[in-house]
């Protein structure tokens, strides 16, 4: 313990022996750590938005379908379990959120235009906040009950069809007998979405209204459940799997949108690479500082060895010095990162590149996401790799022959 105390004291004083060099190195470490954390927060924020938006389009962390539905999403591929029974099971399972719905391709026509869309027959109470709709940005109203007779379409689609709230449109799809099923709806609401293309693709009607239109009785095409964390869907997946029989398939969102699923994994890997690359740049400065510190103190190290300090203690002293430098640099870097991210919590407006971001599936407001895992990763990488980087100069110092070291500069 005594030796450790003297090593700490020597390391601390030696650290400040050359103020300028130490401050330069501390600045480099602090800025490097800040860059690691800040850029990671931006990247994670962007990916998080892309994934959240992507999931809100699906929507649902875990989904249940007829086995053939994903290949051929037509009304014949219904879930055989009745909706009432399925809903009762999901309700009893205690998911954070769940819903059942009908989702089929359809054609929507106004008196001027027709467009191919995805028709969602939903229970609006269950679907509230489950999807991509910005409820504060609805002209008219959203659906209110499952047998609502109105229809809600996107703003872009309304422009295309040259229609508006209060006007009538016709929705045409196919029933299980392969007959055309069509019906006139009054547009009760026009929604806006963060990603414009969604306004063109999806239309919403009451679930029971669509079940009647398609003559499918108490059946749906999709059941979904949401968990607490989209990164960890396994508990929800396992719970849903336990609720259904083999007549359906259960998929995670990462299976349904493999692009986003892969992106999440790639981004986690990218963060690690980014952190390591910055550290490698830093490590040159760190090793150089330590090599210089050892070189300048050869005689002193020889003296300590001659006085009876063990080579392992010399090794320890240099490593402690390196760790002190890194810990101070990390502390400053972390504070800088937190201080620069906190004011950006309300989001960074990147609407100037909104079109490009939309092509990537992201919105025009970027919310930096400071995840504790990423902060821990950055700090751990710097400390662990810093330790290994300091081993070489420390080892060299501990290998000096005392008398050669003492007489070296004489």
């Amino acid at each position, binding site marked *: *313990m*005594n*030796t450790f*105390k*003297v090593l700490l*004291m*020597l390391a601390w*004083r*030696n650290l400040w*022996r050359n103020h300028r060099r130490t401050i330069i190195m501390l600045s480099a470490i602090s800025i490097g750590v800040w860059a690691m954390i800040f850029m990671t927060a931006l990247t994670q924020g962007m990916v998080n938005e892309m994934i959240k938006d992507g999931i809100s389009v699906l929507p649902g962390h875990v989904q249940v379908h007829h086995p053939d539905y994903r290949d051929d999403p037509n009304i014949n591929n219904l879930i055989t379990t009745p909706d009432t029974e399925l809903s009762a099971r999901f309700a009893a399972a205690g998911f954070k959120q769940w819903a059942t719905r009908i989702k089929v391709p359809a054609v929507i026509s106004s008196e001027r235009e027709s467009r191919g869309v995805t028709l969602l027959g939903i229970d609006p109470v269950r679907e509230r906040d489950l999807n991509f709709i910005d409820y504060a940005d609805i002209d008219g109203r959203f659906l209110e009950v499952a047998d609502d007779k109105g229809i809600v379409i996107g703003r872009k689609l309304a422009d295309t069809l040259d229609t508006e709230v209060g006007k009538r449109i016709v929705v045409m799809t196919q029933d299980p007998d392969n007959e055309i099923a069509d019906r006139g709806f009054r547009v009760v609401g026009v929604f806006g979405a963060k990603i414009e293309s969604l306004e063109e693709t999806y239309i919403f009607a009451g679930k029971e209204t669509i079940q009647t239109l398609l003559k499918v009785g108490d059946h749906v095409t999709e059941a979904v459940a949401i968990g607490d964390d989209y990164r960890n869907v396994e508990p929800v997946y396992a719970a849903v799997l336990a609720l259904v029989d083999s007549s359906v398939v259960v998929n995670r969102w990462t299976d349904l949108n493999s692009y986003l699923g892969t992106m999440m994994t790639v981004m986690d890997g990218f963060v690690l690479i980014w952190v390591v690359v910055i550290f490698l740049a830093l490590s040159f400065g760190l090793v150089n500082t330590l090599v210089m510190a050892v070189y300048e103190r050869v*005689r*002193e190290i020889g*003296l*300590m*060895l*001659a*006085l*009876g*300090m*063990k*080579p*392992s*203690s010399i090794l320890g002293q240099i490593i402690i010095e390196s760790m002190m430098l890194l810990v101070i640099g990390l502390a400053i870097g972390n504070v800088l990162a937190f201080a620069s991210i906190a004011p950006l919590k309300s989001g960074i407006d990147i609407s100037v590149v909104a079109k490009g971001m939309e092509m990537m599936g992201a919105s025009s407001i970027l919310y930096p996401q400071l995840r504790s895992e990423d902060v821990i990763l950055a700090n751990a990488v710097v400390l662990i790799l810093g330790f290994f980087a300091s081993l070489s100069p420390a080892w060299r110092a501990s290998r000096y*022959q*005392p*008398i050669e070291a*003492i007489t070296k500069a*004489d």
Partner: protein
Amino acid sequence: MTAVRCVDLCKTYIQGDTEIKALDHLSIDVDAGGFVCLSSPSGGGKTTLLNAIGGLDIPDSGEVWIEGERIDTKSKGQLAELRLRKIGFVFQAYNLIPVLTARENVEFVMQVQGVPAAERGELAINVLKEVGLAGLEDRRPAQMSGGQQQRVAVARAVVSRPALILADEPTANLDSKTSDGLMDLFSELNSAHNTTFIIATHDQRVMAHIPRLIRMLDGRIVDDIQQHAP
């Protein structure tokens, strides 16, 4: 009791194409409490012998014994432990750790030995007073003269009461008055604590001061005389 025994020591250095015999079948015994001066012209081998006795350098052949324990076969770590417990060093120059104060330098060895803080603090203050540095405890080496630094080094060497103190040209950078003071201090410590001193020097004043004088030449002992009683 024999404090130091060297048996048939040989050490050869290669300098360019030339072989230099720093120690040439040298044997020597020093009793505990002995006060010995090693003297030789430059390159005569006195520093090499001192380093071999202190475990700082390993001879090519021969044996080195300290208080009945053979040291030339020990590992680096074992030699470090031996130096820490049994030997005090005073070098010609660069004796102190620059980032430590006089008191901390004196405490350094004791701290590594594991002496409790209160005890070593008291010992350090007392020994600094003994070497005439009372009031300078908190000065760093850069704030002291060469003589004061050398006295701090002596204080550090003696504070933990080692059995053996090895000093290599301890007065080389000192004026005659400081040099005399330092030798008086060595004598006092030698007689008061029965500490064995081996001092390498070519300073005639120092040689005259020390009871046993060993003259060396080309790595061999050419003269070993008891000049006067301790």
